[in-house]
């Protein structure tokens, strides 16, 4: 029995899978933002009761958490101390010196206070060169004084980040020992552990971020384990990483920076599964209230990015390559005074005060209001729990229309089109910008607002089929159930291919593989479920960005020449950027990814048969192609496998609504997905 738990802003979603019977149970309880573990424990109790099992029967609890992300976004992390090499105390203060464009962009730039302040930073006399040579020995006496001073000043965690420590971590380790001996209560992160890669600012900020969220994360994990134990849950708790992998709760406590994108990871993993089952490459399209997350799935695999941003801060950790744009159901539409141009987002009405039609006090027109005005959102949501103020929405949108000289309908349509264009920009970044043609992909819609907009996005980009899964609202929890154990082991190794012996690479790979296997042992992954993935980050000498080239395990085992890898690189570079150069290739880093497979979730096939006409709830007007059309509204729960619906139509379900555009049809496939295709012309 595996249990997936997804804590959202409003609800905690749980999904329980019984491998023996293939049954899946679903539960929803209100989230408890003041202490998320209360809601989680309540949800666990509830779902076990629903499934008629004892909490002791759970084998695994898989949990995606936004605790780390929220701590950074809300500025509520721990007070972190920072030890740097003397002379580089201002590393976070100076950051990358970057200011935004265009010219004079800095006039409106807001620069946040660094996650470790200058008052909590101390320089340590020592210096290591780029090749790992010690130039100035560590002055342990001065270091001890600085450590005593800093560790008694009220800091809650300590980051040690010295120059070139990726090439020689010795000084960082010595400092850690001094801290452990004298101030054992202070948790310490070494930059050479968290991110053994060059570029001092990236390495330092990532490690500091780890410490910034660490005390909060540790406390949270302790509480949740306590509560689960109190409920007689005996299984291990596993946390979902930003790259979609799983790790033990203990590891999550040591390296919480690896969970900054834990939340959206579930949806991406689910998209991977849908992609594998349906055989389509897919774009994941997760549209929520304030933002939309998109990512790309090729050959049934997600793309992994080496860096991400959390609020204003960069974090160099492996993450599923999810792009986020500030357009969602709550995004506010406004007309800019001087140019009279229509803007949608990034300002959002959020959950409070929310869109006008939610009647929670919102007065500014939003994307949801536009959907309500056009008849796409039904007047009653969540199976009767909430009714929409459509007149109020109309009035708010009319304000926009007046300024633009447009009717209410055309203004509403315009708001949706602008929002779609913003989201399109994000989809383009992850496809065309990488040489991928969006027309080779389908699009998977989830999140509260995803199914409202996905068909329009598909039409704009030409990406079909547009897939709406059976439960777009709990797709993340489902993704957690399907996650694999995963961890990356990286070694920076900057060296020209001109003077690299193959053994230099193979020996380093062997080292990393040993560490990877030890980790899999720790996670208790069975031998048969293990897999190691090898890759080399390469670039042309002195280029600024690396291309990751996967190395065939047979090649690693054979320990032969490196040329096949370089050939692969030239080909990839040409495919991605349209050029190849005749300058030497350079190695930047080696990477071994340890993967531990988990059992797939068997999906029950919904029953077939029945006339779709029986699923019609009502027929009401909706605005398509510049006119009001009487549009059938279907109950999704009554659409069986094989059912075919003609657009235009609105398909309603408990927590989501699908808009099916004119000249499109939706068919329920064997997995219960709505598959939307354009009609043959």
């Amino acid at each position, binding site marked *: 029995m595996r249990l997936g738990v997804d804590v959202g802003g409003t609800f905690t979603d749980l999904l329980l899978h019984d491998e023996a019977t293939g049954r899946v149970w679903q539960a929803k309880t209100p989230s408890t933002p003041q202490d998320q573990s209360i809601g989680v424990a309540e949800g666990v109790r509830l779902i076990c009761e629903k499934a008629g099992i004892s909490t002791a029967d759970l084998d695994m609890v898989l949990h995606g958490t936004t605790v780390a992300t929220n701590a950074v976004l809300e500025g509520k992390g721990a007070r972190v101390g920072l030890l740097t090499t*003397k*002379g*580089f*105390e*201002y590393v976070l*203060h*100076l950051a*990358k*010196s*970057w*200011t*935004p*464009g*265009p*010219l*004079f*962009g*800095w*006039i*409106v730039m*807001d620069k946040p206070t660094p996650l470790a302040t*200058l008052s909590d930073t101390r320089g340590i006399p020592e210096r290591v*060169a*780029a090749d790992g040579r010690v*130039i100035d020995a560590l002055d342990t006496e001065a270091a001890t004084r600085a450590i005593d001073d800093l560790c008694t000043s009220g800091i809650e965690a300590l980051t040690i980040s010295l*120059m*070139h420590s990726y090439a020689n971590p010795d000084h960082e380790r010595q400092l850690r020992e001094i801290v452990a001996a004298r101030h054992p209560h202070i948790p310490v992160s070494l930059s050479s552990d968290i991110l053994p890669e*060059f570029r*001092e600012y*990236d390495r330092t900020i990532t490690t500091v971020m780890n410490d910034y969220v660490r005390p909060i994360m540790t406390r949270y994990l302790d509480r949740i384990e306590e509560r689960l134990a109190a409920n007689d849950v005996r299984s291990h708790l596993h946390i979902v990483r930003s790259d979609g992998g799983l790790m033990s709760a203990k590891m999550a406590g040591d390296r919480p920076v690896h969970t900054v994108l834990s939340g959206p990871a579930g949806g991406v993993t689910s998209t991977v599964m849908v992609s594998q089952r349906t055989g389509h490459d897919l774009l994941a399209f997760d549209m929520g209230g304030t933002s939309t997350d998109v990512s790309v799935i090729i050959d049934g695999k997600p793309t992994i990015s080496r860096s991400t941003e959390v609020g204003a801060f960069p974090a160099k950790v492996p993450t599923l390559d999810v792009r986020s744009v500030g357009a969602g159901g709550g995004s506010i539409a406004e007309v800019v005074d*001087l*140019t*009279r*141009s*229509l*803007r949608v987002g990034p300002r959002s009405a959020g959950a409070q005060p929310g869109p006008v039609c939610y009647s929670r006090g919102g007065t500014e027109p939003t994307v949801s209001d536009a959907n309500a005005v056009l008849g796409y959102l039904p007047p009653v949501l969540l199976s009767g729990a909430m009714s929409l103020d459509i007149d109020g929405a109309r009035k708010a949108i009319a304000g926009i229309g007046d300024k*633009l000289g*447009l009717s209410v309908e*055309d203004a509403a*349509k*315009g708001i949706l*089109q*602008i929002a779609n*264009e*913003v989201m399109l*920009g994000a989809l*383009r*970044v992850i496809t*065309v*910008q990488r040489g991928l043609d969006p027309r080779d992909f389908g699009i998977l819609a989830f999140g509260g607002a995803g199914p409202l907009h996905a068909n329009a996005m598909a039409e704009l980009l030409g990406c079909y089929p547009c897939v709406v899964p059976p439960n777009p609202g709990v797709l993340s929890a489902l993704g957690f159930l399907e996650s694999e154990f995963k961890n990356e082991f990286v070694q920076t190794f*900057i060296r020209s291919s001109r003077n690299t012996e193959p053994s230099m690479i193979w020996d380093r790979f062997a080292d990393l593989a040993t560490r990877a296997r030890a980790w899999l042992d720790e996670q208790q992954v069975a031998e048969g479920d293990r897999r190691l993935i090898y890759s080399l980050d390469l670039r*042309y000498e*002195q*280029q*600024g*960005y690396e291309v990751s080239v996967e190395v065939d395990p047979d090649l690693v085992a054979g320990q032969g020449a490196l040329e096949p890898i370089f050939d692969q690189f030239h080909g990839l570079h040409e495919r991605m950027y*349209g*050029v190849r*150069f005749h*300058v030497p290739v350079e190695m930047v880093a080696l990477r071994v990814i340890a993967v531990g497979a988990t059992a797939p979730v068997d999906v029950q096939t919904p029953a077939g048969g029945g006339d779709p006409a029986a699923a019609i709830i009502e027929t009401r007007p909706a605005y398509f192609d510049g006119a009001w059309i009487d549009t059938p509204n279907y109950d999704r729960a009554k659409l069986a496998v094989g059912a075919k619906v003609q657009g235009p139509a609105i398909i309603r379900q408990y927590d989501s609504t699908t808009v099916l555009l004119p000249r499109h049809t939706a068919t329920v496939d064997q997995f219960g997905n709505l598959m939307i295709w354009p009609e043959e012309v």
Partner: protein
Amino acid sequence: MQVDPITLDIIENALKNARFEMDNVVLRIALSPAVREQHDEFPMICNPAGQMIVGQFGSYIPAVVEKFGGDINEGDVFVWNDPYACKGSISHNNDWCVMMPIFHGGIHVGFSSIFGHMTDVGGSVPGSMPANARTIWEEGLRVPPVRIYSKHVLNDGVLEIMLNNSRTPDMNRADLMALIAGCRTAGKRVGELCERFGHETYLAACDLLMLRTRDAMKVIIDQYISEDPVEFEDYVDDDGLGNGPFKMKLSIYRRGEKAVFDFTGTDDQAEGPINFHIHEGLCKLFFGVYMIMAFDPSINFNEGFYDLFEVVLPEGSLLNPKFPAALSNRLNTHTRFFDCQAGALGQRAPHLSMAAGYGTSPHFIFTGTDGEGRYFQLMELLFGGVPGRPRGDGLDGHAWWPLFSATPIEYIENYYPVLVDSYRPVRDSGGAGLHRGGAGIEKVYRVMEPGMVSIHDDREIVPPWGINGGLFGGTSEKWILRAGASERERIPSKIDNLAVQPGDRIIFITAGSGGWGDPLARDPALVARDVAHDLVSRHRAEQDYGVILAEDGSVAQAETTALRERVIGKRGQPEPFSFGFAPAA
């Protein structure tokens, strides 16, 4: 032709996305640290007349388009770098500019263009920016606008000539190809828009986007520029040959609906390479971007407003030099151009004004031959104080120029024989103010191989001014501490090919920036914080801010209040500007 407002906004968004896509493509392919790590490259998308529809500041290409008349074909890519042969559309030889016409279904629908800074284009010194050049002949190869691709076919000859004249041919080749790839990306996106909406609609939308910006600019001009001229003067330290300081003078006024920017009164062109040969169109672009960012950043920035501006650049002056005046080190002048603008416009709208920054783009260049006999050429751009501004404090050691970023020290040490001993903001270098000016930086380089060092900087003599009561900021300084020596020696801010030996240290200090608003009104707690962070000294906290700190660093409230009252009583209202420099009569 009518374009509905929604389509117009969609096209605007799509073009903005395309412009950022161009950046990304360039950064991923380029090899030189200047383009790759520091983002010294500027993309834009233009209409068929060559007018910029989106971009930050591109080069001004209508002058080049004009030159080729109708002879522009699908698959052509143009390249040039000679400022004199393109009427100042770019302003020194290091900037290689690429321009590509965009066709859709055989119809010419626009141009994409990018220029980027090449590490070396030949000439008398590595880096091609000799601080002592007297003519442009010393500043490297000059390529007039020519086709590098003609109807999709690469013109090998042109490429070979260009690369053969550089000390860093591999880098230049990759960087140039990166610029071309970026232009092609824009070409594809514009093509897709034409496909989606029809090229008539696309072109009409381009016109409307410009019109929309023009209308907005009209409002801004009415609001902030009066018929009464406002004037401002600022200075470039020197021209690298011992002449200077050089005065720049700007008057701004409105005549009818036109804003006039008049540089009459600016000094004659310099003997050294600080002349800024600038196209009038580019001038308008610079004025426009400032006004948009200062007065309403939500306006899309394009060339639509050009006919509302009139620019006067006296012939033979620093801003309109005669061929063959040397140009390579024009960034000081370029920045002072903006400083004059900020100083003049700030007088009419103090609440939207800003102080002066570090005032150039400081360069550190270190060349030589390493132990393995390989030539190396490190060129690094440094940063300084970003000015105090209405929104808050200036930024310490940040980029005044948009989208630039610092090269990681670990990167530099991996590839070049230098070791950085320390890197920090300079204490008391940010001008005092309600919003403190950003501090300059101090970077100490230790060279590990024999070689040559060149430096370009400014604001060593004339400090960055403060505004609205804010005080002027710290000046730049350069020192060398020879290996084994105990005393450091001062070196000029503009110097070429200074011979260095292993163990020598160069102490590179950039200027800070001016403060904004009355420092006596600054929250004393913020002053105490700056003192704790070693950004402001106790002495200056008292002298400039009227803040007295107790032994433990906390604010001595009563003493501070008393001191501030005393100072205000004596001083009265602060002066609108604080210069820290008086020109010789």
